[in-house]
């Protein structure tokens, strides 16, 4: 095993990288467990995505009546055909990237996903999508419970969170997930150089081994420190990746670029979490252009770059992406040219093994129609979001979804994989 030591100076502060050359770079645990051949990337659109303007039912006259200033003109949508209910649908014009994937047969659009008595609170609803239990917004998350099924000891990078805080979906009783919001600053700095800097890193590592008996909060911070030090070098490996394609220069694009780097460099993570915000469009959301159009552009362009990069590197068939938001939005626009909190939303899946197409049926937006709820203000759910989770767990990650979801939700699951 060849050891390379690099030391470089930034801002007067030395950054210590203690690296091994790949493939010996993988942790012993990750190697022992074998490289997972399948990875799941979960994307959360924070704030409640306006699903009705993501996938547009452009022949529904009530869509235009109820959204006089924010509706997408029928002539601008990117047509994706007709769903099982006979409704013609199209993607937002800024989702050209997703449209490309759809046309390659690798984009699944699952309409009207949600659950009964949908929470309109951002926090409670996000937690419910995390716990996968509409009755409880506390406790562990569905991805955390999946990670708990991996053989122990589990690799410190079994999952990779690109956001700074740990979402409830990844919370687990037994498996910590590193948060790597900015991979380029995921380093260990010292006020000193040379051997003093290395001695300092050693001391920090030893300090963090203190089990802190009787002080669980201290033990928790110590375990976080240990996980940080353990994962430094492999994260550096991922950031050294040069993509085959230019990613959009925004937070979402850069997060996907980092994920691609981790996948291509083979760091061994099975689950990646990416989130992007700004979807709480209560005011001035715009139609084809404007704030919502920019959100769609960020989303579609980022995912197209990611998809293309993985295809170029031959890893597309090992990767599935699923995308969700905590709720959809009110059907009628409000007085501020925006939309308030609603109910059912849109889930999207893409990847080399995804069976593309339209799943489920669009709501009829006519007041009084049974596909609506809340005095016809909101879209009522048709597909239980847990059935999509079940499909991903059973068919993609190869585990039994029933204990993870605390129930059998396979019936009626869209056959996206």
């Amino acid at each position, binding site marked *: 095993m060849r050891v390379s030591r690099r030391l470089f100076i930034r801002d007067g502060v030395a950054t210590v990288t203690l690296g091994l050359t790949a493939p010996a770079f993988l942790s012993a645990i990750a190697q022992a467990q074998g490289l997972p051949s399948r990875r799941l990337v979960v994307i959360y659109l924070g704030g409640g995505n306006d699903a009705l303007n993501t996938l547009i039912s452009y022949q529904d006259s009530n869509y235009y009546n109820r959204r006089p200033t924010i509706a997408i003109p029928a002539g601008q949508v990117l047509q994706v055909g007709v769903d099982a209910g006979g409704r013609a649908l199209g993607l937002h014009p800024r989702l050209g990237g997703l449209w490309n994937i759809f046309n390659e047969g690798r984009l699944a659009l699952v309409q009207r996903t949600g659950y009964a008595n949908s929470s309109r609170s951002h926090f409670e609803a996000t937690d419910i999508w995390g716990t996968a239990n509409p009755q409880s917004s506390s406790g562990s998350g569905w991805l955390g419970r999946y990670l708990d099924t991996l053989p122990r000891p589990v690799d410190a990078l079994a999952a990779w969170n690109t956001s700074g805080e740990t979402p409830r979906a990844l919370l687990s009783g037994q498996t910590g997930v590193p948060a790597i919001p900015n991979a380029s600053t995921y380093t260990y*700095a010292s006020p000193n150089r040379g051997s003093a800097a290395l001695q*300092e890193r050693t001391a920090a590592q*030893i300090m963090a081994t203190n089990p802190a008996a009787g002080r669980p*909060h201290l033990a*928790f*911070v110590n375990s976080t*420190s240990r996980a940080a030090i353990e994962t430094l070098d492999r994260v550096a490996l991922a950031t050294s990746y040069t993509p085959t394609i230019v990613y959009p220069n925004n937070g979402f694009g850069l997060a996907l670029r980092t994920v691609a780097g981790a996948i291509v460099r083979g760091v061994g993570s099975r689950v990646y979490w990416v989130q992007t915000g700004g979807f709480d469009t209560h005011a001035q959301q715009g139609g084809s252009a404007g704030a919502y159009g920019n959100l769609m552009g960020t989303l579609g362009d980022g995912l197209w770059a990611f998809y293309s990069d993985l295809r170029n590197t031959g890893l597309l068939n090992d990767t599935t992406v699923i995308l969700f938001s905590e709720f959809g939005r009110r059907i009628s626009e*409000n007085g501020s040219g925006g939309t308030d909190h609603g109910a059912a939303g849109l889930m999207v899946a893409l990847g080399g093994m995804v069976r593309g197409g339209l799943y489920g049926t669009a709501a009829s937006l006519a007041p009084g129609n049974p596909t609506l709820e809340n005095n016809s203000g909101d879209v009522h759910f048709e597909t239980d979001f847990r059935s999509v989770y079940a499909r991903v767990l059973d068919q993609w990650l190869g585990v039994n979804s029933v204990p993870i979801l605390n129930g059998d939700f396979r019936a009626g699951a869209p056959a996206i994989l």
Partner: protein
Amino acid sequence: MSQLSPEIDHLLRRAGFGASPADAETFRDMSTSAAVAHLIDYEGRPDDVDARIGRADHVQVTSRDLFAPDIDIDDARQRWMFRMIHTRRPLQEKMALFWHNHFATAYSKLVADSGNLQAAKMLAHKPTTLRGPQGQIELFRQYALGNYRDLLLQVAQDAAMLVWLDGQSNTKGKPQENFGREVMELFTVGVGNYTEPDVYAAARVFTGWNLRESVGYRRDDMNAYQEFVYNADEHETSEKTFSFPIYTNGSRTIPARSESAGAQDGVDLITALAVHPETARRLARKLWNFFISEVHQPDPAFVDGAAAVYLRNGTEIRPVVRYVLTSPWFNDPSMRFERYAWPAEFVARAIKEVGWQGFSLDKVRSPLANMGMLLFEPPNVGGWPLGAGWFSTGTMLARTNFAATLAASQKEFLAVSLESEGRTPQALLAAMLDRVTPAPLDPIPQQALMSYVVAGGTWTGAAEQLNTRAAGLARLLVGSSEYQLV
């Protein structure tokens, strides 16, 4: 460890931002109860901290051109950190931080609405020379220990909040639910204590609570501003019924009122929410977590006690905080170091304890962002994920790397000031622990620190050795897990 009693050290970490050597002078001869009074009854001491920005014996600020904290958000961030470090009223600053999280409002959305200058002004304007209302953070300072009902009313009429939760466009034609929902879910009673119809009713209550622009408004004009206006003809006048009492006679219905009298709807709802028993309990629980412990659940007796003080005193916060800081729970030694330091607290305390010679606060912006707490940029209206939520591998590295940056900047200063203690490794470590106050260190970290001091070879106490090891120790202590607890 430090030169102060453990009681006062604890008090200053919780009700302030730790103690600099100058603070230690101030508090050295004070009893604990005198120190509590000193912190709570702060009006007697001058609010002169901003005037000291730029003075040589203080932490520095750096600006691209003229330092303009009323209209430039990065300068406003530096001014706030400066205040945390040098204020003579630490509890006022601490409560401003508490309210900033409670009424979490993010600069970025304000920018999208009104541009950089107006967005910064809405959040941070301190009226001296520029025209326009005070910024949101000044409101939080003014009401730091003030009346909660009054604060809530001011917040409902605060320009930043009216943009943040879209009240500016709440009209009778299409009531806007954003503020109506959050005022119940997050600012007062909490989930489970209101219904969906309450949200719709609350939206109607605040119709017409909008903004107006100053005459000749231009967003890049530093004297232009936006301010609250009650647009009577945009107010929805019909009656509004809630699931909880609005009036002391138990009535749940705000009566139909004329447009001109309709602003009273919002005052009635805010008053009802402020005196709602669940608001009292929710604030009590949040204050427990902020001042007493994030490890132990709030003691029911504490929640009852603090809520009763709040209601008995007509929603005044000062008596509640006095109750908290003098309570047996706050003063229970087992509650020390049972809170996870917020990144801004961590940074302010580290600077106060390690030193600030030649250090500029523009160097804390990126580290704070990497730690997950860019001031004036909470992740959403629910505020930051507190407690254990601050800690992930990435944010922990950001904390330790900030410790490295700070220690590197204070290298010479530390070596010079520790020259006499540097004669033995033991004395050096002890002297560092006099300045820097982590939670008690178990034998494993203690031994690791001592091994680090002597790892460079035979100890001579020579300048270069002291230079390296004192800075390294500061880095290890401030970056330790123990130091993240307050």
